[in-house]
């Protein structure tokens, strides 16, 4: 060796140092990237839960309502047709009376007029009471304990959304009413508790944010998913099997393949306008119906399912196909007996991820009218679930978010929590199914 100084292994040379530095830097970048992602996720979750958890709580007013025969059934005949003739206006005096009684009972003095006192209740209170009376005519004449939704301003006051300064320009509530609320809370008449009807109930009009719920939109989403699953899975899997296993490889199948990949990248709103043009305008399927929504989402989901199914079929080792053909199985037997079971976990995962995508999709629903529609009742059969106008969870959230009343804003966040719960559940199912199928051997 002509080298004068023999390099030692114990000291790092310049190149090694540089290389190690580069590696350390790269690790830092990676950590920074992951850290940013995690921070965003935490921020997102904190915001969602901070804003949305309130929607699961609602303020209720418990009153003893005298169901006066003189107001509801003057002749005492208990004739349902006649009782039904008493409109919600007829119930208003009962509510005022009940409120007055509650104040008297708890020794609360208020200068407010009866109407202002009753305004603490939701605008749906009279209707709720009327529905109760029509369902229970035998209770007329008695005094019944009834729990009403509180007005959204009262609810907001208990949740610190509405404050004494924020109501300065608010015509629906004033400071005296808030004083009364304070006293009623102290007396235990007004209480905040878990509100199941946010999860099960229907949307409500602009005037009654406190009554709005996610339930009916959930049914809409459910029926859409049913349609998507029933159509996209068999069509997608059949198409993939044919393309992957049977179709000759030529320019026609190449074009089909390119087009499927392109379809997966088409913005969902394009599928929406396609659905509007074809399913509603041309085929005259009912507007706003989950059936149409499901068909549109099927179109949107199909490329995803086809691509993931083909990928999982491709990943089945060719030796399995050879083995099956080698013992004299037909092409179809080799596919259905051997290839498909091995590809099933991948297909399932792809399908569930496709479904989850479809579940969260809003844009196409805007175009087929599944938005802004207030279904007052949950569908009572599969047919009505599919054909009657409805909304869907993301559309409902969008609808709430754009309404003026901040009480709806809270419900939009609450709706997002429910939607996320659904998506997380579906993804968990996907992971579990995958594990289950893969563990077989």
């Amino acid at each position, binding site marked *: 060796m002509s080298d004068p100084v023999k390099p030692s292994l114990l000291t790092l040379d310049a190149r090694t140092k540089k290389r190690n530095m580069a590696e350390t830097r790269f690790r830092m970048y990676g950590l920074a990237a992951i850290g940013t992602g995690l921070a965003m996720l935490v921020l997102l979750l904190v915001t969602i839960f901070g804003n949305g958890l309130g929607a699961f709580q609602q303020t209720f007013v418990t009153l003893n309502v005298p169901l006066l025969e003189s107001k509801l059934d003057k002749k005492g005949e208990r004739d349902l047709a006649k009782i039904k003739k008493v409109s919600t206006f007829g119930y208003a005096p009962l509510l005022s009376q009940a409120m007055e009684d509650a104040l008297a009972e708890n020794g609360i003095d208020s200068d407010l007029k009866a109407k202002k006192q009753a305004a603490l209740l939701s605008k749906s209170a009279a209707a709720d009471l009327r529905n109760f009376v029509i369902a229970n005519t035998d209770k007329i004449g008695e005094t019944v304990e009834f729990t009403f939704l509180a007005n959204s301003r009262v609810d907001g006051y208990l949740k610190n959304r509405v404050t004494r300064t924020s109501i300065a320009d608010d015509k629906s509530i004033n400071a005296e009413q808030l004083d009364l609320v304070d006293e009623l809370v102290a007396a235990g008449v007004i209480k905040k508790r878990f509100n199941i009807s946010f999860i099960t109930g229907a949307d409500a009009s602009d005037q009654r944010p406190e009554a709005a719920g996610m339930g009916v939109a959930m049914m809409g989403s459910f029926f859409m998913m049913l349609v998507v699953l029933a159509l996209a899975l068999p069509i997608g899997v059949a198409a993939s099997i044919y393309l992957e296993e049977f179709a000759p*490889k030529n320019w026609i199948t190449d074009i089909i393949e390119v087009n499927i990949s392109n379809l997966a990248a088409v913005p969902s709103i394009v599928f929406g306008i396609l659905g509007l043009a074809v399913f509603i305008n041309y085929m005259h399927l009912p507007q706003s119906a989950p059936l149409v929504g499901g068909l549109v989402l099927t179109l949107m989901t199909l490329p995803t399912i086809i691509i993931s199914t083909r990928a999982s079929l491709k990943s089945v080792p060719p030796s399995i196909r050879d083995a*099956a053909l080698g013992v004299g199985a037909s092409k179809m037997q080799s596919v259905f007996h051997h290839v498909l079971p091995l590809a099933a976990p991948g297909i399932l995962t792809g399908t569930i991820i496709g479904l989850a995508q479809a579940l969260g999709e809003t844009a196409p629903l805007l175009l087929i009218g599944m938005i802004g529609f207030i279904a007052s009742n949950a569908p009572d059969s599969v047919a009505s679930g599919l054909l009657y106008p409805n909304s869907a969870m993301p559309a409902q959230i969008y609808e709430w978010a754009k309404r003026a009343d901040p009480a709806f804003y809270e419900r939009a966040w609450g709706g997002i929590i429910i939607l996320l719960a659904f998506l997380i559940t579906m993804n968990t199912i996907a992971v579990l199914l995958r594990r289950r199928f893969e563990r077989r051997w």
Partner: protein
Amino acid sequence: MKENAMDNIKISAKNVQVYYADNHAIKDVNVEIEDKTVTAFIGPSGCGKSTFLRCLNRMNDTIDICRVEGDILIEGEDIYDRRVDPVQLRAKVGMVFQKPNPFPKSIYDNVAYGPRIHGLARGKADLDEIVEKSLRSAAIWDEVKDRLDAPGTGLSGGQQQRLCIARAVATAPEVLLMDEPCSALDPIATAQVEELIDELRQNFAVVIVTHSMQQAARVSQKTAFFHLGNLVEYGETNQIFTKPSDPRTESYITGRIG
């Protein structure tokens, strides 16, 4: 039991040409394969021996660009005749592949699959019997008889390959094609499979493709040497390895080409 040579011909290939698109992979091969004999195909990589083997049960049909010309007769019937269904043919001409490829199912189901799809068993007992017989003839019965429900993929490489042989035997084939059946096995497993091949000769015509000349010499009675798509020499194994008539064969078996 010495039979007339003509009666003993199981497969006869005449002027077989195989093309992969424009690539002429098999050039005018003529060969007659005898029944109850092990025939070895040897030759350097890419010489076409596997391709030719896969012509014998029409596995090449699964490759779109592959085209076969000429006649391959099994007991006088042209297997490339338009009336022949390759699926039916493959039950008659079983195949064992280079890499053991058991189905990801139980050992029992691996063997029972062929008889099931071909309707060979008349009931559960019948099927059990076929499975046992096949596993016995593949010399693996004693090792797996207590765990027929265990997955076939959980066996060792050599056991898997013998399971694959049992699976091929279960459909009651007349010819057994083996495409480098020992190339993924260790020497002990190889010895077991070679021993098995010798036993299988009692009932089948066995055609084996191998890279190992020692293996060809050990297990086969007839040897065919392929080179660049041509069948260079075909004859008694003894004669090929001791007195090859073609200089190319000699170079190959002495290690100068290949």
